[in-house]
């Protein structure tokens, strides 16, 4: 499996028993891989363990079984090779914007001179459009600007891989749009390998090369891998003119609303091989995408109410 830049094999997470009652595994049989320069998004309902998977990749959490390999080596503990952008930006409020980024840069290159560090940090902060605010404290920034600092911090250490835990979840739609554009530009320029959690279907289509769809937990699995077949030079303003866009979008929404809960249990296993989840290209193939026909009829109108347009 070492042909891929990152490969995840047989990952499983069971939380320790609560009050003596054993917990069901949150997810199990998770297999996927990411190639160098790929942007991969993972989508699934709350509680399917997306954040746990990301934390395992970051080295902040340990899986109950299975392993992850990056660049031929097993992921064990946190590393400067993997930059993380946290959902809550996680900036240190007592440091300035520059100080926050410099803290990271100095951790990566301890013997750099102060000027070199500052110059390096300033370049990355300018890249996210914060050149004017480098001496401000995080408390003086808006939510979107804070998240940009978080992104600059992660990019500044030039990690081999970037892990983003729903970075725009707490932002308003307008801010989210602008930062998505910026992220898109930076990623297109740097060919950074990215793994990102999102709840936003449009965000995933805009940014990703590949979208992992997770079924609901417990016993969550990778249900499908959706390839976003639109050209890489997408823009937020132009993307919805592409006919593929709606086909992909419909496919994703359909999965989240109707099919995400049909992958548990023995009957689903007959149709679904978690080791090799089906790769689909709804943008090209349209309605030909494989659908679990046996159980797809079950979810009724009541289920639709649950999740509308995640």
């Amino acid at each position, binding site marked *: 499996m070492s042909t891929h830049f990152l490969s995840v094999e047989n990952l499983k997470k069971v939380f320790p028993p609560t009050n003596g009652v054993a917990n069901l595994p949150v997810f199990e049989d998770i297999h996927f891989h990411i190639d160098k320069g790929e942007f991969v998004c993972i989508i699934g309902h709350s509680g399917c363990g997306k954040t746990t998977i990301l934390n395992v990749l*970051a*080295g*902040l959490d340990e899986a109950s079984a299975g392993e992850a390999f990056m660049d031929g080596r097993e992921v064990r503990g*946190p*590393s*400067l090779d*993997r*930059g*993380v952008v*946290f959902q*809550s930006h*996680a900036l*240190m*409020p*007592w440091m300035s914007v520059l100080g926050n980024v410099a*803290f*990271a840069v100095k*951790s*990566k290159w301890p013997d750099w001179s102060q000027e070199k560090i500052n110059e390096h940090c300033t370049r990355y902060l300018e890249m996210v459009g914060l050149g004017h605010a480098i001496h401000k*404290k*995080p*408390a003086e920034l808006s939510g979107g600007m804070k998240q940009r600092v978080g992104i600059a911090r992660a990019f500044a*250490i030039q990690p081999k891989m970037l892990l983003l835990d729903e970075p725009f979840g707490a932002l308003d739609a307008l801010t989210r749009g602008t930062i998505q554009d910026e992220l898109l530009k930076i990623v297109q320029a740097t060919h950074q390998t990215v793994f990102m959690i999102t709840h936003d279907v449009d965000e995933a289509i805009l940014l990703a090369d590949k979208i992992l769809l997770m079924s609901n937990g417990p016993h969550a699995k990778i249900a499908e891998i959706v390839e976003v077949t639109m050209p890489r030079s997408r823009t937020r303003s132009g993307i919805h003119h592409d006919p593929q866009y709606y086909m992909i979008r419909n496919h994703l929404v359909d999965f989240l609303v109707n099919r995400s809960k049909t992958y548990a249990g023995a009957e689903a296993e007959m149709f679904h091989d978690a080791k090799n989840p089906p790769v689909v290209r709804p943008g090209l193939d349209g309605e030909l995408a494989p659908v679990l026909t046996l159980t797809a009829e079950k979810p009724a109108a009541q289920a639709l109410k649950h999740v509308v347009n995640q």
Partner: protein
Amino acid sequence: MSGKLKLKAAFISLMMLAIFLGAWHLATQPKESAVQAATDSEYAAMMGKGKEQSGFPAPAKVGHAFVEYLADPFYDKGPNDKGIGIQIAHSLGRVAVGFLLAVAVALPVGFMIGMSPLLFQAFNPFIQVLKPISPLAWMPLALYSLKDSDISGIFVIFICSIWPMLINTAFGVASVRRDWINVARTLEVNPLRKAFLVILPAAAPTILTGMRISMGIAWLVIVAAEMLVGGTGIGYFVWNEWNNLALPNVIFAVVMIGIVGMILDLFFGWLQKLVTYRE
């Protein structure tokens, strides 16, 4: 707007002070009853009821003590007659030494038990038992084992200021936001850098709160401790003047204790503001 409010508040404060002083003055006016006037003044003086004598000193007399002591705060005329500045300096010196010793112990130990839930559990029963002990209860033990009243005073300051700092440091360190720790972990920051650049600044406001409480207690305790051990210090001064039945001096000292305590508290409040961060 807030300036105007401050001005108004200051005016009311002054009014209250004036009313208090006026009431005090009226209450301590020498009363000349007809009986007293008729009797022999010498006899009255002997009985302690004369015109010269007043039970509680009048504000003017206390004011006189203020002027007298503040005019020359640093004179030294033997062991029982030193200026107020020297006495306060002695007390502050003891507090500083005891307090700094307590900082030197409480910060590292607090850090350690804050980082480790195991150590926290292990230390907790001792802290809970030792914390509520009145600092003065340590005095006999300290005097017996240390055999020096000065060092005993310092020890008592040390033992009473250590607990709030220890508990607050441990609490502050233990409750540093998970996110910040995770950032440090993903950046592979070495433990020392993590301690000084992440955990310490994150916990600093809580630690400073502990220090402020400790300092308040230390200043409360030093007065009592010095009354016991004697020799020098503002506490000894109070006790000495009480033995001299010089109540105006006692009142003067009481006010000075309050003012110095307030200045110490303001100082720590200022430090606290320095390390507090806005999120």
